Each structure stands twice: as C-alpha cells, then as structure tokens.
C-alpha cells in the first residue's frame, strides 16, 4: 500500500494570532480507506485539534463536504484509492463561515436560505385537512418526480462550485432553486407562478445564473440542476405574461 501525503488547510479563527496555513501529514493507506477514515486517523495519531464534520459517514446527511484535490465533494464517501497520486489536498468549502480547519457552518446558511425562499408547503387550508381521513391522492409518477428534487442534502457543494455565487453574495444558488423547484412542482403547495416569481424572477434568482453549471458537476446526489434551472427560467418568463 502507498504512503499518502495529506496537505490540510489549518486555521482557527478564534485562536488569537493563528494564521491560515497548510499542514502536511503522512499516512499509510489501508484497503478501502476513505477520507473519513484517514482524517480520523490523523486526528487520533497526529493532530488531536484537527476540526472536521462527519455525521452519517454514509453519504446521506451532507455534513462532510470539503474541497478534495480541488473538487468540492463528500469526504465520507471519497476513497483515497480514487486518486492516482498519493498527494491529497483538503480545503474547507468556500462560501461558508469557517468554524476551523475543514469545518464550516453550512447549517446556518441553509436555515437562512430556507427562511428566505419559504422552503415549506404553503397552503392556508393545511390546518383544516383531516389526518383521520384518506389522504389526498397523488399521481405515483408525480410523487417520484417530487422525491427526485427532495433528494438534496444541503451539503453546500453546489454553492462552493458556483461562479455566480462567488460574485453575487445574495444569489440563491442551485440549492435554493432545487428547493423552490420542488414546491413549484408540488400541487400541495398553493403558491402561484407569480408568488414564485417574487423570489426567483430576478438577478439573485434564475436570471442571475450564468449557466456555468459547477453545481451540476459537483452535486454528489447527481441532481439535474441544468434541467431544473432551465425549467424554472421558462416558468418565470411565462409568469410575466
């Protein structure tokens, strides 16, 4: 097995006098080693103060996104064997508040985004729907389509890979659009195209996107952002008429 060389971004913004730097660690690669295993090993044996975030360690919860050899992706399901070179460079996701080292505050960002775009079913009548009676029916294919858009795990990869977002602070990004796209598709949400236009029909929404599609390339859940953005653009243009 190889000897891996990790170059890891280190910085503790709360530690007085600390400066951003890259730190080098060597580690013997083992069979089936993931970045999750590697980082825990480095923490256990070489750097007890190394900060990073893992929760499910199964590619399901979106906690562990970081930039690995230049690509934002989920660290828990990235195997070291996928890299031809033994040199692995790790950076925290850009575009989010840094907690320290590889740990960023995606949660705060996502909650604010959800509040901003109204990421919930809007239906004034919802409280009157009886949960004792048969539920409202839905076409099976439509339920599957909604689930497809519901698969976003808010990992933040699309945000950090987005050139528009890098220039425009308030751009809602692919994650914002996939959220709204889901509610737009869902008949349980009673918002009209005009309501969606309020949030989406501007330069911070669909019309700001430069279609460079960093989102599509980096999405660990393979969500079809390209189709989704194009669809929303058409919808928003139609809402004008």
């Amino acid at each position, binding site marked *: 097995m190889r000897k891996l060389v990790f170059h890891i971004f280190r910085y503790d913004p709360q530690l007085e006098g600390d400066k951003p730097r890259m730190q080098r660690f060597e580690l013997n690669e083992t069979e089936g080693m993931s970045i999750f295993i590697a980082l825990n090993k480095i923490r256990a044996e070489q750097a007890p103060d190394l900060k990073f975030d893992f929760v499910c360690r199964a590619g399901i919860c979106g906690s562990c996104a970081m930039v690995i050899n230049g690509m934002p992706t989920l660290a828990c399901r990235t*195997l070291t064997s996928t890299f031809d070179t033994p040199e692995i460079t790790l950076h925290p996701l850009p575009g989010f508040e840094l907690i320290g080292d590889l740990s960023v505050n995606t949660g705060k960002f996502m909650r604010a985004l959800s*509040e901003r775009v109204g990421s919930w079913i809007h239906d004034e009548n919802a409280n009157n729907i009886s949960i004792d009676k048969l539920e409202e029916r839905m076409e099976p294919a439509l339920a599957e389509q909604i689930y497809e858009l519901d698969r976003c795990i808010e990992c933040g990869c699309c945000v950090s890979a987005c050139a528009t977002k890098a220039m425009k602070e308030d751009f809602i990004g692919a994650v914002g659009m996939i959220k709204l796209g889901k509610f737009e598709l869902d008949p349980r949400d009673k918002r009209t195209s005009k309501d969606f236009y309020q949030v989406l029909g501007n330069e911070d929404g669909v019309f700001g996107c430069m279609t460079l599609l960093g989102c599509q390339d980096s999405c660990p859940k393979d969500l079809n952002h390209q189709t989704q953005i194009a669809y929303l653009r058409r919808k928003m243009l139609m809402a004008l008429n």
Partner: protein
Amino acid sequence: MRIEYTDSLIIGGGLAGLRTAIACKKAKLNVLVLSLVPAKRSHSAAAQGGMQASLASSFKGQGDNEDVHFADTVRGSDWGCDQKVARMFCHVAPKAVRELSVWGVPWNRVNKGKRDVIVNAQTETITEANESHGLITARDFGGTKKWRTCYTSDGTGHSMLNAMDNKAIELEIPVLERQQALKLIHDGKRCTGAIVRDLITGEVFAIVANATTIATGGFGRIYEISTNAVICDGVGAAMALETGETPLANMEAIQFHPTAIVPAGILTTEGCRGDGGVLRDADGHRFMPDYEPEKAELASRDVVSRRMTEHIRKGKGVKSEYGDHLWLDITLLGREHINKNLREVKDICEHFLGIDPAVDYIPVRPTQHYSMGGIRTDFRGESVGLKGLFAVGEAACWDLHGFNRLGGNSVAETVVAGMIVGQYVVEHCQQSNVDINASLVKHFYATQCTEIDQLLERKTGTDALSIKTRMQHIMSEKVGIFRTNGPLTEAIEELKALYEESKEIAISNKVRHANPELEEALRVPKMLKLAICAAQGALNRTESRGAHCREDFPERNDKEWLKRSLYYWKKDSVDVSYEPLNIDEMEMPPGSRGYGKSQIVEHPQTQTRLETVDLVNASAEDLSRSERQHKLMPFEIPEIYQEKNQRIGVED
C-alpha cells in the same frame, strides 16, 4: 453565567425532537430546540426503508388495521413492550403518515393495475385496485403480517426529516445548532432545564425551562461497528442517568441489523429483503428457508441476525480480511427496481464497495443498529422520578419495542411519540410553573465548569479516544448478539476499570472553544456508564428474549423475567432493579412468536389471562372492533388523536 428561559426545551433536532417542538409551538408555548448538528443532518435522515402505518391501501396491505399492527408489534417485542403504548402508537401511526403527507413528504403511491412483485424469491403478479390509485402505498418488512411500511424510495427518513424541519422553519421554531446539552438542572424531584456547551465558542450556559424533553436518539457508538451516525453517543440518556433520580430501562435490549455492509458497517435497508432480496452463503446457497421455512429472510430482525451468525459459525460464511460475512442478493429485483426504489443502497454499494448491486452480491453482516432501551418514561413520555423531564424517540424507553423493534416502527415511533408526548408536554406546561432557583442553576453550572477546568488543567493522564476504542471493542466482543455468563462478567469488570481510568483523562489541546479532544473527553465517561448498564443488564437477565440472547439460558422465561430492567446511577455505580409487566392488563397474553422451536417457561398467570381474554371476546361479539378492544385493555390517548382512521373500502 448566561441563562436563557423558555417554556419548553427540547434537546435533539431529529424527527422526535422536532415533532415535539411543533406540538409545543402550535400550543403557543415558547420553544427552544438544541442540536449537535443542523437539524436536517440528524440521524433520522439516514432511515432508508420506511415507516409503518396500517393504511391498508395497497393490494398486499388489504385487511390491515391497528389490531394487526398491534399484534405484530407485541409479538416482535417478544412480549416485552408496554401494550398500552403499542395501542396508542398503532392508532396514531396512520395519522402521522397523513400529517407528513400534508407537510410535503412525497410518499410513494399506489399505481393501479398489474405489477410484478417478488415474494419468497418467486415472481408474483398482483393487481392494484383502481380505487386505491394515488393513495400512499407500502412495502413489505420483516416480522409483519401485511405490507405496511410506507416509503419514499429508500430515502424515507431523509424526506420525513426534510418535511418536519421545513414545518419547524415555517413555525419559526429556533433550532440552536452545534450545542451540546451536558447536564440536567434538577432538585431531586423536578427538572428545570439543562446546562449546555456551545460547540463553536465553547461557552457554557444554562437554559431554564418548564419542561425539558430529551430526544437525543440512540447510543450505538458504544459499539465498535454500528450503523449509527458518529454522533449517536448517548450523552442525552447518560445525562438523565447521572441525575441518580430517574432510571434508564432495558439497556440490554440492543438490536443488530442483519444487513450492514462489510467492513464499513453502513446499512443496507430491510427494504432490500422486503422487496424480494435474499441472503446467500459462501456456496451461493439461500440458507434462511432452512432455518425459518415460513418467514425466511423476513423473520424478525433479531431472528435473522442470529441465524446468520449461526450459519457463519457453521463455516458457511464468506472469508474476508475483515472476518466472515454473508451475501445479500438483490440482483433478482432487476436494475430498474433498484434504480428507483433502492437508490441509496445502490449509491452506497458504488461508493463504499465499488460494486453494482444489480449484478453483484453485497457483503453483509449483522451489526449494532438500534437501542430499544433508554430513558424510562410513562405512557405520557414523562420520566419516572423527575417531574418536568420528558423523553421521546430512540432516546426513550416509552416501551413500544420491548426486546426487539420491528423495522419501520422506529421512525414511526419518533413522529407518533412526538405528536402524543408533545401534547402531554403542553399539558404539563399549562398546568405547572417553574420556580427559578438561582442557586440550583448556579450549582449545576459550576459543576459543569469545574469538570471542564479539570480536563484542561490536568497535565498527564489517559487518552479519551483510547478508552473509547477499548470500550467499543469490549461491547462488540462480549455484549454482542450471543451472550454468555463468562464474557459478560469479564466485560463488566473491564468496563468498570475503564470507567475508573476515565476519571484521569487528560487532553493536549487546551483551548476552550471548538475542541474535538475536549468533546471526546466529556463524552467518554458518559458513554461508559451506558455500556456498564447494558453489560450488567445482559448478565443479570438469565433468559433469552427478543434481541437479548443468552446461549446459557436459551428459553424465554416469563415466570422469572417478564419484567423491565431499570438502571439507576447511585454512588457512582449502577443499581439494577426490575419492574414487572402486568399480565392481567395485557390485551395479548404471552405466547409464541412462531420462530424455530418454541422455548418458553410460562408465567403462572398467563393461562388465567388467556381465559379471561377469550371470555371477554366471546361476550363482545356484537361490539365494534374498537369497543371490543377497549373492553380488553382500555388505554388513554390525547383528545385530538382519538378519531378513527379511515381506510379505503372498510367500514370499521
């Protein structure tokens, strides 16, 4: 010292915590939710296969109702559960699924017409009724008489948690992320909040609350390999234990899931087998029917896990450098089905194993998965011993699951219990006031600060991580699927020694703010307490019931052991006592689960109760289903959830 005040403090932002918070907020209470991580990343998100509720809309669900669900749950629990709680649960589960549907979960739906399904490795064609088209459908899961598990592909927990958290955001419920509760504030009778550490700034502060609800999930990480998230450390349950005033229960009841991948321990859902997947051994032979001819792969989880281990012991496992394993074969389901209904499984296979489950077998082995035990509560979710302290979800022993929980009954429990217990939390807040006792708050605050100061000041000592690793190893080796006196006795001695060592933990990183080493040091002694409870409970219980299997005591002994284990932490060690289950109140008196050869030492009252139940049933023939049920075992339920559940084409 900063003090925050709220009516209802909820520790945990998973499904259980959020649903409880929503109940409180709807009743116009002030609510605060704490979570180690952003709410949507809580471990509930990892639930794949689905949620049980007897909607009975799909062809294979026909005839299902609360009674059938109840019987499956009680049988599954090996008669260890609280039957009244099981009744409350089965009644509210359909409402919970329907409520989540209103809130946005895209449940998979019934598609009218013919379709092929795989049952017992054979293709069967079924026809879904036109009247059911578009209603919520269900898949098959282990230990159930009907197809009852509602799902969204194999990302059910993810979709549920999304909808739940979105609802919480809509209701403007504050979720304080990256906060860890470490201690409860109490005076020996009444709990009035918690001491919390901010995991970013390191600030320690107090939250004073009228009601405090622990919804911190399971504690799988006391084991070496677990399907649980790395944050499932049990600190929430340990906090309650450490008060010395309120017990944990049934800590020896630990579930091992049959199909976690080797070596990572990541789960592949029971839905794989529910949808028709089978288990194979080193020779490619499908072995489960040899052991359980009737239910085969879909026997209850504890049964399948034991049979697999037995089969491996016979030398039929597949050799690997990570130890022997077996194969999960879902190739017979076909690529289309896998791509649509088992996509997380497919992703996991691709990324962690580098295989394609549509053509390759998946290497699996039984792995720690679920904690049936937890903070003992009454049917209202309130702890035994401390007023104003509630527990809900996997952290609680509400006692829906007894000694083995059915797949799909856990996410269902989180939401249902959130709905029910939430109502009782509201009731509590409306009926009682909290006296703010400043010196009490200060006392607990100071104790917590001292603990942290000592860790930071101690120059040399033991390493928390190494203690944790040793604990995990002991638990996996000696408190696993099959248990015997010798290893259990050793485990307890070793765990107690580790606990002593943990009093001398030292850390090298001395900062007070974000500090993973400090977090570990605070966590490990608490985890050890839970491990000691589990091992001691397993040693004491000289019978086999559900997931607790003693090779030296293979029979289920109702005569001696039809009781719940209770653990108090007193004088710095565990004190175990027992609470009998009352047969005279059981709707379903103890019987056989129908697996293998039945080995039961009967309770003297079982026969009498069976006769009473028969008499009541005979005299109640003209009554409706629910009237008959209430004659046998009346149970309480919050008023807003009392209505009957409607089903397609059924009157009663």
